[in-house]
């Protein structure tokens, strides 16, 4: 609970002005990739490591993961069909076969229709989502942030002891 509240608070704070739009958009697209693709995949381990070691916003990554997990649940049959199309594409057969015969590639399970379909869809989506998120952050700061901070949820969050503890810790940490 503390962890979730911590990241919600951190996200609100980051959205206000602390983090750069690039960091927020970076966290968002990395969280989106994990959300759209099957969670227990090897490539998600790499994405997770990237989230931890790159200066992207973790709260934004969690938010994107939650949103896109729900979308993926509905879109999996589409990813499956897209995956079939990709894996059966005549021009790519040699590539798939040589990748399949290489154990390092094979453990990513790219030969599964949903894994490859969702992963490529997520990568393609990154292209518009990164600038869109940046624009969204700027617009949020300009027009929406004030209103959000006045909502009962934000006030309640600020009023909790956990939040004040978090604020204190954050101040001490600098």
């Amino acid at each position: 609970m503390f962890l979730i509240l911590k990241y919600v608070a951190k996200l609100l704070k980051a959205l206000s002005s602390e983090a750069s739009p690039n960091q927020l958009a970076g966290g968002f697209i990395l969280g989106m990739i994990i959300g759209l693709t099957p969670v227990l995949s090897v490539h998600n381990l790499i994405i997770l490591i990237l989230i931890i070691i790159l200066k992207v916003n973790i709260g934004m990554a969690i938010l994107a993961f939650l949103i896109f997990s729900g979308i993926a649940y509905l879109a999996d049959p589409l990813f499956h069909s897209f995956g079939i199309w990709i894996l059966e594409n005549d021009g790519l057969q040699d590539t798939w076969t040589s990748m399949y015969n290489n154990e390092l590639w094979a453990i990513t399970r790219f030969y599964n229709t949903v894994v490859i379909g969702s992963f490529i869809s997520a990568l393609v989506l990154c292209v518009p989502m990164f600038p869109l998120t940046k624009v969204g952050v700027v617009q949020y700061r300009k027009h929406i942030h004030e209103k959000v901070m006045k909502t009962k949820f934000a006030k309640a969050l600020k009023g909790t002891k956990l939040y004040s503890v978090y604020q204190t810790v954050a101040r001490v940490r600098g």
Partner: protein
Amino acid sequence: MRIKGLIFLAIITALGFLISWISIDPIVESEIEYQASIANGALVEIDGFDIDLIDLKIRWDRLQVANPENTMSNSFETGEMELDFLFWPTWWERVIVEDIIFKDFKMDTERETDGYFEIPEDEKNAEPSFVAQVIGDVTSEISRNANMEFTNIKTNINVDSLMSKLNLQAPDKIDSLRNGLSRNYQKWDSTFANTKINKEIADIEKTINAIDVKKIKDPKKAIEAIKNVQKLVKQVDSLKTRAQNLKNDFQEDFGDSKFSVGRIDNWIQADFQRAMNMAKLPTIDPGNIAQSLFGENLLADYSGYLEYVAIARKYGGRLVGEDKDKIERYEGKDYKFSDKYDWPKLWIQNIDLSGETKTAIQLAGQITNISSDQKKTKEPIRFDLGGKDDSNRSMTLTGEFNYLGNEPRETINFTYDGFGLKGTKISPSELLPYPLKTGTGEVSATVSIIDKRFDSEIGYKAKGIAFDFGQNPSKDRIQQLIRDAVSSTDQINVTALVDNLDGPLKVKVRSNVDDLFVNALKSTVSKEVDRARQKIESRVRSEIGNRKEQLLAFKNEKEAEIRKEYERLENRVNEEIKKVEEKKEELEKKKKELEDSLKNNIKDRIGIDW
């Protein structure tokens, strides 16, 4: 770059390694012990287990496999063992072992603790396997012959007491067969009584009779009537088909009944045989004598070997075709671009075994390609073990368990040669109670099982033998005759054939001394046996009475009734077909007549010849 993130990752990775380093050995060890114990039916224990994730090796100091029949001993145990497994298959939850070396392999060793293992309910296999059934049949054959007495024949058999203990089964079986037949006949009576065929025949007949050909004056009406009759033709054809189907069902039903009635003699014979066994009356023929002399020892060992075949088949069969392609809605489908990862769940490519048997033969050899799915390895399990000891006793065991085809095939060849017979008795039978002064033995067995077809031969040779009859000649006439007969024999060859190639399992035992025994017994106890036999046979037949004859008479009478009923129905259908065909022809003729007359009228009026 987030430095704290990097440190966090490093700590998590280090912790992960540390935890798996500490906990993996006991987890894997207990899982292997548990699964192996279920497979074995008794405890399997591993001491000094160690798994090395860097070198990809598993080793242990000692493995004990308890004997399910006697849990205070081990079927076998091994000393140090080391195996190498491949890394990549573990990502696909597969264990591929290239090489295992078992040292200090020992059979039949004593245990310090009880090796009993409680098999969980859901792991128990309620249905006995085919091989288990064969073992059961062979075992019952052993016990049947173990009770035979050849020398102490009771001529004053109390038949009343014998019959009260016997509980004849044939009368109940015959009555039950009669009830079954009776129900079947009732079913057919009701089929004929309720069939709609009779009513439909009557309707067709009514329609046919209503068509009066003489009254038809117009070709159009003739065509209409022909169309109606054509419909009737289809209807009677369908009636014929239905009648034919009834006949087929009827023949099928009574075909089964005939088969059942044919079994009555077997039931009576089985009751008689049980009575003979209970009275311990032997049938004096070479087969029976050989089985009584040597069958018990030979077949008991044989049943023991078959247990191993049963275990191999059980696990070979259970895991065939383990990975079926499945498409689940949200899991997607895995594409295979090559068969590179088409591994079975477990594949032990080679086992090098060395050790010694309980009789101190130094055994060594190889077992190759043990796998959970031979269709993936494309290799059957093969084993080739053998060895000798200082006194020239030798043992070989070769074979193949092949589950590559549609039918499982097992072939096993075993020989054990050169063991001493001095001081041992060659047979547990009262007919041959003498120990041997000298001799060596050889046992060989060949077993071939293809699906449920079973063919095996076990041979036993006692070479260079001399019996120790003691100092004094026997006062018993039979014993003296047997002594005289076997004293000149220096070799005994026994062959047991167990197969089910022509139907039920047959066990035949033959030896080169059968005729000697038959002659000795025929000249002494044969008449007593025949008298007692006749007494029992006549009593069994009188108890069963004329049930068989009554049943046959009942069957013939009822079948004749039903056949008559069917023939009556068939004749009515055929008659109706004939009537419909006749009516059709009549109508065709009438139509032609009317058309001709119409043509002539027109010709007359316009003066044109068509």
